[in-house]
């Protein structure tokens, strides 16, 4: 590992690497790797999004023949898998984690830059494998790939296993890397309770990543082994059990939903104080509730299996644990709302996305509690109610968080602002279209429309038509962002080091940051959110402090 001096915070600054390849392709610089993540998973976001639009086209009217059932099944399976493993997780951990976390703890790079590069380069092949599986007949059993179908299905499913296995290894490595970085490489004086909340979120996510994801990898390996060598793990006719897969899969995939939402929590907790110009309300509550959520999340997996014939005495504890998760989550939401109180709120586009996040995520959280209660879940399970719920937390939660973060940290990443007016239009379009798309699905589900169907009872026609049309608008709203990004790269207003007047460490250095982030390692004197007090850092470039004191916005 030729990374020893990079990894070492106090070591002297080495010259930046020369040559295009070392600089931009096989780079060890966490900022470059972050950008690589953003671009790659942005690409997959477009592909998976198109699949979603395709699904909605098929569902525009009952007995539609745009897609034949097989293609439809492939479409929603790959859409789900790609959105979860190729978009949300890589953007939040790989993208924002890499870009922001080391800067916020005042480190010059992550602990193992070489591993960091490795875990990025495991990611594009995985995506290619997943989308390539269309050639052999893509997986058809949804992103959860329940046996026996996933065992009987087309060879593409083996490619799916391989793809997600790679992702699993990649995010295990990332998690391990980040956790070591946060534990060992914080700037002098940055105690745990002086860390920005995004770092807290990243730490907890990293923990979940390297604990839970190992388990995902093994359950995929087992599925692969069964498909290849016909051993009877999930084969009930030879003593195996299809339910075993559900246990192993959800033992990962429930923590995974927190892997997907916690970084978004972190982003929200960063943006609110900056835009509201006041300390975050209940710093400790928000920080520790993340830890609580992470710990409990390992004991709730069977709430995805309430109709899988588990004994009642097994279902009960899982129901209770699931309801317990709602409490720390509620604490977070209430704290964020309270942080708005008595502020000096600036309605910038990042804040708008954060407010959208608060409203939609609260709704998704409440439907989550409804799904936690076993009897209610028995009615709702496997219907469009689930689809609505998971899109409210993953799209309304994670993706709104992602866009908030993009608008917020774009200047730090590129040195140029995104256009605010476009950003606000983008938000309103996306917010309205989002709710029009997913809110009606709750009713569809409760009234009896099952999920993963290529056609449906004609009585649901008008609602589905409305949903489809809103879905197209939602898709179109993404074009606005794409235009905005491209436009800003050329004509975007030059951002100073600290355009929002924020107080966390990443804003104390020029944007985009230099190769080694900090000329002098800063010394942290107190928490980051005390607006109105002098900046809590020593050894920070003085003119940066000037810039921070007088926000350009």
């Amino acid at each position, binding site marked *: 590992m030729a990374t*020893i001096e990079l990894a070492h915070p*106090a070591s002297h600054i080495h010259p930046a690497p020369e040559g295009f390849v070392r600089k931009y392709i096989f780079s060890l610089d966490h900022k470059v790797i972050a950008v690589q993540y953003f671009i790659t998973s942005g690409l997959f976001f477009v592909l998976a999004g198109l699949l979603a639009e395709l699904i909605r086209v098929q569902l525009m009217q009952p007995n539609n023949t745009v897609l034949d059932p097989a293609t439809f099944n492939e479409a929603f399976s790959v859409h789900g898998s790609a959105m979860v493993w190729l978009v949300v997780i890589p953007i939040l951990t790989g993208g924002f984690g890499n870009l922001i976390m080391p800067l916020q703890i005042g480190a010059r790079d992550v602990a193992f830059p070489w591993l960091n590069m490795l875990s990025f380069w495991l990611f594009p092949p995985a995506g290619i494998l997943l989308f390539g599986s269309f050639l052999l007949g893509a997986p058809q059993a949804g992103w959860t790939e329940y046996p026996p179908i996933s065992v009987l299905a087309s060879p593409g499913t083996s490619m799916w296993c391989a793809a997600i296995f790679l992702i699993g290894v990649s995010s295990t490595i990332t998690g391990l890397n980040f956790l*070591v970085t946060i534990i*060992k490489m914080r700037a002098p004086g940055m105690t745990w309770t002086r860390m920005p909340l995004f770092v807290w979120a990243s730490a907890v996510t990293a923990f979940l990543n390297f604990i839970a994801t190992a*388990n995902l990898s093994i359950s995929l390996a*087992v599925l692969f082994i069964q498909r290849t060598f016909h051993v*009877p793990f999930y084969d009930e006719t*030879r003593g195996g*059990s299809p339910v075993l897969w559900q246990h192993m899969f959800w033992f990962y995939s429930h923590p995974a939903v927190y892997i997907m939402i916690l970084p978004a929590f972190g982003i929200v907790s960063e943006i609110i104080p900056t835009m509201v110009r006041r300390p975050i309300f209940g710093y400790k509550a928000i920080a520790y509730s993340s830890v609580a959520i992470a710990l409990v999340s390992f004991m709730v997996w069977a709430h995805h299996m309430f109709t899988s014939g588990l004994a009642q005495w097994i279902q009960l504890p899982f129901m209770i644990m699931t309801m317990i998760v709602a409490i720390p989550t509620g604490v977070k939401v209430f704290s964020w709302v309270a942080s708005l109180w008595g502020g000096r709120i600036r309605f910038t586009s990042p804040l708008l996305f954060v407010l959208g996040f608060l409203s939609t995520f609260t709704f998704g959280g409440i439907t989550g509690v409804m799904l936690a209660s076993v009897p209610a879940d028995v009615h709702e399970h496997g219907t469009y109610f689930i689809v609505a719920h998971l899109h409210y937390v993953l799209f309304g939660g994670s993706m709104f968080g992602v866009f908030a973060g993009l608008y917020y940290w774009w200047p730090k990443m590129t040195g140029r602002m995104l256009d605010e007016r476009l950003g606000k239009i983008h938000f309103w379009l996306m917010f309205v279209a989002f709710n029009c798309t997913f809110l009606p699905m709750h009713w569809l589900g409760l009234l009896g429309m099952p999920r993963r169907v290529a056609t449906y009872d004609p009585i649901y026609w008008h609602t589905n038509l409305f949903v489809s049309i809103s879905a197209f608008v939602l898709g179109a709203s993404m074009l606005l962002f794409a235009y905005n990004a491209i436009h800003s790269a050329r004509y975007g207003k030059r951002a100073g080091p600290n355009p929002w007047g924020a107080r966390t460490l990443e804003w104390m250095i020029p944007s985009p940051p230099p190769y080694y982030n900090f000329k002098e390692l800063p010394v942290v004197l107190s928490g980051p959110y005390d607006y109105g007090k002098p900046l809590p850092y020593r050894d920070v470039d003085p003119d940066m402090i000037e810039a921070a004191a007088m926000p350009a916005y």
Partner: protein
Amino acid sequence: MASHALTLDDRAYAEQRDIRLLGFLFFLISDSIFFGSLIFAYLYLRNAAPVWPPPGIERPDVYLAAVNSIVLFGSGVTMHVAMEGMRRDRRGQFVGFIVATIVLGTLFVSGQIYEYWHILPVTKWAATTFGASFYTLTGMHGFHVSVGVIFLITVLIQTLRGTYTKDRHFGLTAATLYWHFVDIIWVALFFLFYVY
């Protein structure tokens, strides 16, 4: 790589070592989750089966496995002694015992292979849940042991090249920890498959 390590001053090396050590321990933790969930699967299937082991096969020979386990456990001890040698800067002791460890490790793997091919009819076994979990778990463990052997050979060569010194030998520490980890996993597997 090591050349860099030697360029660092002691404090820098200590910090560097701590970072690496923590990372390596985290790796071991997630690796044990790897085995843990497979063991969960094994226990789940065993629990679900009406009769265990499934009809048509009987448990593998426990006594051969016991000898084999002792070979592996012994290698754990020799590895520890080797490390002690390095800590006290006794090269002879180190080289001797690490070679012993490598030999024992190889012995263990060959014992496993012998068991696979001469005691348990693979095809017959692989059709049962017992066989499936047995081959997957012991196979993965065997893979870990083989990797460990290669790891040991590498560090041995590096040591002979003089990469590691009395107080700068993180590579060796890592190899030792990994080797002990592999032993411990086998304790669990031996108990689950042969005794329990």
